[in-house]
């Protein structure tokens, strides 16, 4: 049970942290339609997170519900990849982060929809449709921004360069995942790398953005070794629940 709990928690944390980041754009987006699009993508992810947390809590069997998991764990207990906790930066950086994540999450949810675990499969099937849109939407923006003005091009290249070290972590596999992949429950990310590469290459090329060099990759999220950003994000997210222990909202 424990590996399945860990695994589900990782997926839930990825979705919540990224959904929360997108929700930070409300009131700050460059154009109203984008404020709605960012919010909608955030809603998709928060919805995925809720389903996954609920399932994780059931698996764990200690009575922790979605809110206990989201609001009452410290940063060191969070299991998301480091990419999703990176600050929004400018609009190009947000779209680049979304492209990098969704270009992985789309084939990943396609694969996970075949999981022997019926709940994970169902969550993945629903998420798959959502992630298809996220890839399309973020790709369209990266192309517009990369092949737009000098300024937008520079910002988009800077975003690619800065976020590139965070993409490797999506394709890591550890003991927990190896076990679950063997059992047909988890989706193996390694075979998905080729599709991810193809998507990124296609989009960056069309956006006239130079693909950054593959160097050392950031890592540590699965072990709770986060960047300094997650602590601040959680202080915001969790404050009310921490200030009113045991209250119902």
């Amino acid at each position: 049970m424990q590996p399945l709990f860990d695994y589900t928690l990782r997926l839930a944390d990825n979705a919540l942290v990224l959904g929360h980041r997108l929700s930070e754009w409300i009131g700050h987006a460059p154009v109203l339609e984008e404020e709605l699009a960012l919010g909608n993508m955030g809603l998709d992810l928060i919805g995925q997170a809720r389903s996954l947390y609920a399932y994780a809590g059931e698996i764990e069997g200690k009575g922790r519900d979605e809110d206990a998991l989201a609001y009452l764990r410290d940063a060191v207990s969070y299991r998301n990849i480091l990419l999703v906790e990176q600050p929004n930066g400018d609009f190009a950086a947000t779209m680049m982060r979304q492209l990098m994540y969704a270009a992985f999450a789309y084939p990943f949810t396609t694969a996970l929809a075949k999981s022997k675990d019926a709940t994970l499969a169902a969550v993945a099937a629903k998420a798959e449709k959502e992630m298809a849109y996220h890839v399309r939407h973020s790709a369209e923006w990266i192309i517009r921004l990369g092949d737009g003005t000098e300024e937008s091009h520079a910002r988009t290249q800077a975003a690619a360069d800065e976020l590139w070290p965070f993409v490797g972590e999506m394709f890591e596999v550890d003991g927990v995942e190896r076990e679950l992949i063997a059992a047909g429950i988890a989706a193996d990310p390694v075979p998905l790398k080729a599709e991810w590469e193809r998507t990124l290459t296609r989009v960056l090329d069309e956006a006239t953005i130079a693909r950054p060099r593959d160097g050392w990759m950031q890592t540590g999220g699965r072990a709770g070794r986060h960047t300094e950003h997650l602590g601040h994000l959680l202080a915001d997210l969790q404050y009310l629940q921490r200030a009113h222990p045991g209250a119902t909202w």
Partner: protein
Amino acid sequence: AALAARFQAKVDAEEKIEPNDWMPEAYRKTLIRQIAQHAHSEIVGMLPEGNWITRAPSLKRKAALLAKVQDEGGHGLYLYAAAETLGVSREELFEMLISSRQKYSSIFNYPTLSWADIGVIGWLVDGAAIMNQIPLCRCSYGPYARAMIRVCKEESFHQRQGFEIMLTLSRGTPEQKAMAQDALNRWWWPVLMMFGPSDKESANTDATMRWKIKRFTNDELRQKFVDATIPQAQHLGLTLPDPDLKFNEETQHWEFGEIDWAEFKRVVAGDGPCNKQRIKQRKTAYEGGAWVREAATAYAEKRAARARGAARIAAE
């Protein structure tokens, strides 16, 4: 004159005026102002609520609030589109908002200081807005009426969610109950001001009533709202911050205290707690995002040029 007569006849017959119909210039101007200000209200209204999304205290509330704010943005889009049918562009209207030449509902000039404010906004602000808007669903101008029908449906849902937040708080810890009461204390009077000046002070009502843009007077709607809301507050175990509140058995209406019209005028004129902050936020986002819009335009032009180039080559 014949056109004007025919126009008024349509209106009197409860027929819709559509974008291509003739309309008096004053009608068109009034509608542009009203629809634009309604649209501006939706998008400025996203800000006080947006202030609590990242701190929403449960995932259910987080998702609901984010969805509510999305709906409001969507309402803004429909309404800008409705205004555009009258011959203005959205960019012009947005410029008028951020330069303070057009207004938005003054209720959004108040700050959201606790999570309970989010409940109160759903319950009372959406509640008052619905009361103002339901008659607009029968507005003579077709695009506006149709937009209002969609808006009211979604806002009813938001109002119920807001009330549900209040219910949860009022059944919660002492701190939560105090939070709910404090929020109600701060928002009640500004909400009553949402119905506008008292009838004896209102200019311009005749034309808007005649053109079936406005159906009920400010005081009529305000009274309806108070009568509907007080039982809800009682159900929540909350008191209204109005010592003059008294049910009149004869009229079957709730009598309430005098609104501070000086505060209303001051806030509408620009001197409320959040006026400058709200405009600054929308303006900063807009100006800060200029490079994004410029990029989109530049890209579209490049694409069009490439398509023309390709077409030329194909033709040769």
